[in-house]
Structure formats: structure tokens, C-alpha cells
């Protein structure tokens, strides 16, 4: 059996790494063997952050640099990530899940179906409540849309219930989950969603 490969994309600063950090603790508690591949735009800062977080053995976090093209490495030419995932599966045969974090990109980024089985797009309220209305492939096509930093909504003039409703509407009812990753809020629901939709365990 091979590990499920789940992509996590979204704009710079939306909270992709924070989501993974928060998910790792929940995944460990539920006995799901996990590894992570990061696609930092510059060097391997996100990978180092996850390694230092201590929730995963450092060697289970691998960095793939994106050659100034965060979308290319997950879509047009995903082979570097495919090779890194193959290597992780060879090194850790019991893996259940490989999370692939995209380098921060824009609303048009999508994951190649050759690379992932499922993908999550992360936006945040501070990016503006008009993001769902702007649509874009990331918003529309992701299997799960996460709206992070929900607690900041009153401070940035965002009507959060309305933003959530608009996001659900433009996605035709596909899953949308709110989170506050830094406080761990909503993260259990994201993991439960993955267990139900992808991991089947």
C-alpha cells in the first residue's frame, strides 16, 4: 500500500506551514504515520521550521526547492516532488500520509493529479473577504478550502460568516473549513476530513 499524497497550497502567509504544524500533533495522536515535503521558494526555511517543531522526526521532513517557480514544481513539472515522495515511501514503508506543501503562490495555483491524490487550498481572512469572489482555480478546484486566521476577521473588517458563505457558494457546496491554526482551532476538523475523504481510517 502506498501513502496518500495530499497537497497544501495557497498564497504566501496564508498559514500553510502553520496548518501542517498544527495537523502533525493531531495526526500523531491518531496514529497516522506522516511525512512532509516542503517547496520553499527560497532555501528550506519551512522545512527547517517543521523540523525544529519536533512533532516529526527531522528526516521525515524533506525540502524540494522550486527554482523560482512554485507552481511549476507542483503542476507543470512535479517530478522532483514525485521523486522525493517515492524516496520517503522507500525509506518509511509504513507511511500513511505524505503532505506536500507548496511554496506560496497565487489564487491560480493547482496541484497536478499526477502528484497528489487530494489537495487543500489555504487562504486567510487578512487577504481580504473578496478572495472567494475572485474565484481562481485554487479556490474553485481544491478538494478542501481552508480559511485561516478566522479570529482576525473583526480586526481587518471582514464579515466572516459572509466570507464563509460566499466561499461555499462559489465552490458549489464543496468543503470549506475555518481554522485558527496558531491556536489549533478547526485543525481536528481538517484532520477528520482527511481521514474520512482520503485515508479511510
Amino acid at each position, binding site marked *: 500500500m502506498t501513502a496518500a499524497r495530499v497537497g497544501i497550497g495557497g498564497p504566501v502567509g496564508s498559514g500553510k506551514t502553520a496548518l501542517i504544524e498544527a495537523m502533525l500533533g493531531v495526526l500523531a495522536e491518531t496514529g497516522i504515520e506522516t511525512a512532509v515535503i516542503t517547496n520553499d521558494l527560497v532555501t528550506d526555511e519551512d522545512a527547517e521550521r517543521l523540523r525544529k517543531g519536533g512533532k516529526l522526526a527531522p528526516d521525515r521532513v524533506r525540502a524540494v526547492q522550486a527554482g*523560482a*517557480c512554485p507552481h511549476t514544481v507542483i503542476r507543470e513539472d*512535479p517530478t*522532483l516532488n*514525485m521523486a522525493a515522495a*517515492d524516496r520517503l515511501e522507500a525509506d518509511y514503508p509504513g507511511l500513511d500520509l505524505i503532505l506536500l506543501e507548496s511554496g506560496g503562490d497565487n489564487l491560480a495555483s493547482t496541484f497536478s493529479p499526477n502528484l497528489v491524490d487530494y489537495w487543500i487550498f489555504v487562504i486567510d481572512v487578512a487577504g481580504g473577504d473578496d478572495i472567494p469572489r475572485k474565484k481562481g482555480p485554487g479556490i474553485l478546484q481544491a478538494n478542501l478550502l481552508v480559511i485561516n486566521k478566522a479570529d482576525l476577521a473583526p480586526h481587518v473588517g471582514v464579515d466572516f460568516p459572509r466570507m464563509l458563505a460566499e466561499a461555499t457558494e462559489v465552490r458549489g457546496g464543496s468543503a470549506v473549513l475555518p481554522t485558527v491554526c496558531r491556536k489549533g482551532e478547526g485543525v481536528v476538523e481538517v484532520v477528520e476530513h482527511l481521514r474520512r475523504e482520503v485515508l479511510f481510517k
Partner: protein
Amino acid sequence: MSLSTIRAMQLADSGFPSGVFAYSWGLETALADGQVCKRTLTDWVAAELRTRWLRFDRVALAGGFRLAGEALTDWFHTVDTLMPVERNRRESAEAGDALFASARALRISMDPGAEAAQASGTGHFSVAHGVFLRACGLTLTEALETSALSMARGAFSAAVRLGVSGAITTQRDLLALAPLLSELAVAPAPDDLPSGFMPLSDVALMRPHEGRLFIN
């Protein structure tokens, strides 16, 4: 047009997924250090073709193309031994891993000798490229032309993404280099060994560079 020519065009296309877009092979650092600039970019690419590609990659690729089985595994190990700088050696094998991943996804069967080398961590890109292009039905000359063009195109593509040159300018520069590509893409003798010392790019490859966008 022959089938192998059409395949060569496909395999040399920048859209072909093999991971090479994320490597600058020293160019990013050389640009940051001011050792190469917009005006001298074509000279850099030509020098890389005449040195790194001609003396090392071309010979390594030809061995990968010609050999099979245990002899091929030995050739991968020979090429590995001839790469004394650990970082370059590691990155060359990682680039090879991406090509193997591409071959698996495309269901293009790589020689078992190549698979064995990759499993042992010596699946270097240039040799794997020869194995892969043969498996795709190219002749050795077409494989060498594809490799040389890919190397030059990759360097120019990196320069475009680094904001040093424009997409149209680099196509003009690539056209100007076409005669050189044709001149260099000649099969080496079967007993040739990869060799080469390219001081500027070798040093650039080894130098750490803060804020690097490319793998090397």
C-alpha cells in the same frame, strides 16, 4: 519527419517534466557574485557547453545510452566516482531521481542496470538521461542533440526567471548557439571517460548563496 525526430523534439521541449527547471548549475550564484551578467550570459552558456557538457555530460550520457545491465550499473558508479564534490554529486543524483520518477510515471522502462544504480543512490542525471532517451527510441546523435539543447535552454530559462534576461532575447541567443550545439553533439569514443574542470561554475556550484531560488 522520422518518428525519432518527433520524439527528440518532444523530449527536448521545456514542457517535458524531468525536474531540470529547478537547477541553475551555478548560474544563480555566478550572477549574484557578478561573475556573469546580462551581456555575458551567452558566453557563459557557450563555455558551459564547451566544458561541462562536452567533457562530462556528453560522455556520461553516451555511456548510459550504449551500456546495459551490470556494465551500465558500473558506468553509473564510475561517473559517481568522477564527481569528487559531494554537493554536486548529491544534486546530480537527485536530478536523476526526478527523471526516474518521470520514466516510471510515463511507464517508460529503464534498463535494470540503471534501476540498480538509482536504488544505490548513484542514478546520476546525465547517465540516466542517456538510458531514458535510448528507451524512447532516439539515436545516440539525437540523444546528444537533445541533451545539449536542454542544457542550454535550461540555463537561459533560469536567467529569465532570475530577471536577468528576457524570454525573447534568450530565444535569439539560443538560435545563435545552434551551430555550436550541432558541432558539439558528436558521439565520444566508447572508451572515453568523463572529465572536466570548470573553475568558474564549479566554484559557483560550491558557494553558499543566501536567498537561493534554485537547487544549485
